[in-house]
């Protein structure tokens, strides 16, 4: 049943069949979506009516491809921007959190750590509505008392960034602190003994050591932000992100343009995955 133990033929074949079925289940929706992006039909379904790139490039009365659809292009652009800011912010604060929880000793550390992990078990919808509530209350309070209208406290681009940041930071804390825990502290002590100050040590020794974890966290944070729907739904203003845009389009009725967008996303992430694989192989072979 494991690599070193022999098993009966039926058991092996049965098990393999289950695994194959599982991977078909995993990939069927993705592959079908991709294939139908190239079908020369007005609906995303079979039969196959020939190959076309219309759903990417066409711009006529009947068909509008992704690259000609300004609405879709702008929501893709906004998702990229959101993902970038969320990933940068989460990376900075999450790394600080990792240093705080791994290297510092202070009162209420346990309680604060508990709080930092809490976003993992708060449903995204709840985070969305509670941040919407408190930003609206804060905005109203500031306006009543100072007459200032702070636009980012209303549903808007920056409120989406804050909302996603609030739980993605937790993932960065977890990833970076697990790496930081394995760090050999004698290196830091040696540097300190030789006269380096705390920030030199972090800049020259600890951060380079953490680099793979930091890059990994940045990519995962970006992807989490890029795909986020539940929290964003309540905080989004006029700058809609791609998932929100896709959601309203799917509700209105689907056209193969949505397949084309999905294809681009699937293709883009597959490329990332392949790069990741090659990068890891190169590192292991060194």
């Amino acid at each position, binding site marked *: 049943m494991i690599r070193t133990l022999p098993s009966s033929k039926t058991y092996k074949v049965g098990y393999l069949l289950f695994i194959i079925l599982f991977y078909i289940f995993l990939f069927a929706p993705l592959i079908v979506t991709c294939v139908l992006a190239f079908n020369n039909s007005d609906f995303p379904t079979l039969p196959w009516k020939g190959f076309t790139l219309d759903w990417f490039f066409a711009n006529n009365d009947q068909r509008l491809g992704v690259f000609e659809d300004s609405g879709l292009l702008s929501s893709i652009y906004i998702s990229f921007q959101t993902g970038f800011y969320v990933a940068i912010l989460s990376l900075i604060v999450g790394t600080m959190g990792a240093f705080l929880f791994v290297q510092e000793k202070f009162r209420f550390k346990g309680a604060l750590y508990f*709080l930092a992990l809490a976003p993992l078990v708060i449903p995204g919808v709840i985070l969305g*509505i*509670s941040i919407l509530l408190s930003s609206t209350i804060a905005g109203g309070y500031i306006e009543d008392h100072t007459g200032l209208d702070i636009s980012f406290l209303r549903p808007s681009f920056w409120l989406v960034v804050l909302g996603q940041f609030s739980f993605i930071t937790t993932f960065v804390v977890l990833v970076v602190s*697990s790496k930081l825990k394995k760090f050999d502290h004698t290196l830091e002590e040696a540097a300190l003994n030789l006269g380096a100050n705390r920030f030199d040590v972090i800049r020259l020794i600890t951060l380079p050591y953490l680099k793979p974890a930091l890059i990994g966290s940045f990519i995962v944070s970006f992807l989490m932000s890029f795909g986020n729907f539940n929290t964003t739904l309540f905080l989004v203003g006029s700058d809609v992100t791609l998932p929100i845009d896709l959601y309203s389009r799917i509700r209105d009725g689907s056209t193969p343009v949505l397949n084309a967008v999905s294809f681009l996303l699937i293709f883009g992430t597959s490329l990332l995955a392949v790069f990741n694989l090659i990068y890891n192989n190169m590192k292991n072979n060194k």
Partner: protein
Amino acid sequence: MSKIKWGFYIFLIPVLLWLFLLIVLPHIDLFVSSFRAENDLGDMTWSLANYKSFFSDSVYWYTFVRTAVYSILVTFLTFLVTFPVAFYITKVVSIKFSGFLALLLLMPFWVGELVSVYGWMILLRESGVVNFFLLKMGIIDTPLKMLYNDISMVIGLVYMSMLFMIVPIMSSLEGMDDSLIEAASDLGASKFTIIRKIVIPHATPGIVSGSIIVFMLVLGDYVTPDLLGGKNSLWFTEQIYNEFIASFNWNEGAAFGFLLLALSTFIIWLALKITNQSFEKAVS
């Protein structure tokens, strides 16, 4: 010494701001808002009205219980589907392929929930791909209605949850010594006994963390029940959305949100108590 103190505050302040402004304060506001309602004169006062209407309207608590039951069911199904796969990748398949197979598991997460849900809609709808093949092969004469019911909703929920179950299980199985299984097998234990007495106990921390994350994600999900479950999906997050966006009754919505949060906290606490795990360990 003073330099080290400085470093401490530079780390502490951003973390405190994050946790206080974006986690603690919003949940206090959520809690407070849920107890505010308009009285007969149209003024906002303290009141239990929001909770009263939850308990008096059967649709609300029916949806609430339904959401909880389905979330537990989906969590369990996800475990059943992914456990053999986790075991296969970590213990059975040759090490050459295990990394690749594990990487493939990430795809649905990387492309995002919306794309996967859309893929399932294309597959399952009446004019969809599955029906097309079934008709073509002569298995059925009229297209089956596979979309917009509880089964399609459960399929979608299991699909989007699998990764979050399989990764923690794989990491706890990786830490398990193969010689335990070899020894048990040498002593004549059956496969079933080995799985029940050795593999499952070793995988328990992973199963618990996976279940917690999956349960929470499913309970708080909106897209999958809404798009794959159709009009009758009755998921509790849809009620919250309706209160906030459609009827603009934020106080009622806050009460619903708070109830959902209480439910998820309670079930997670219960799961941790039963299996004797700590929260910090389970989520990291």
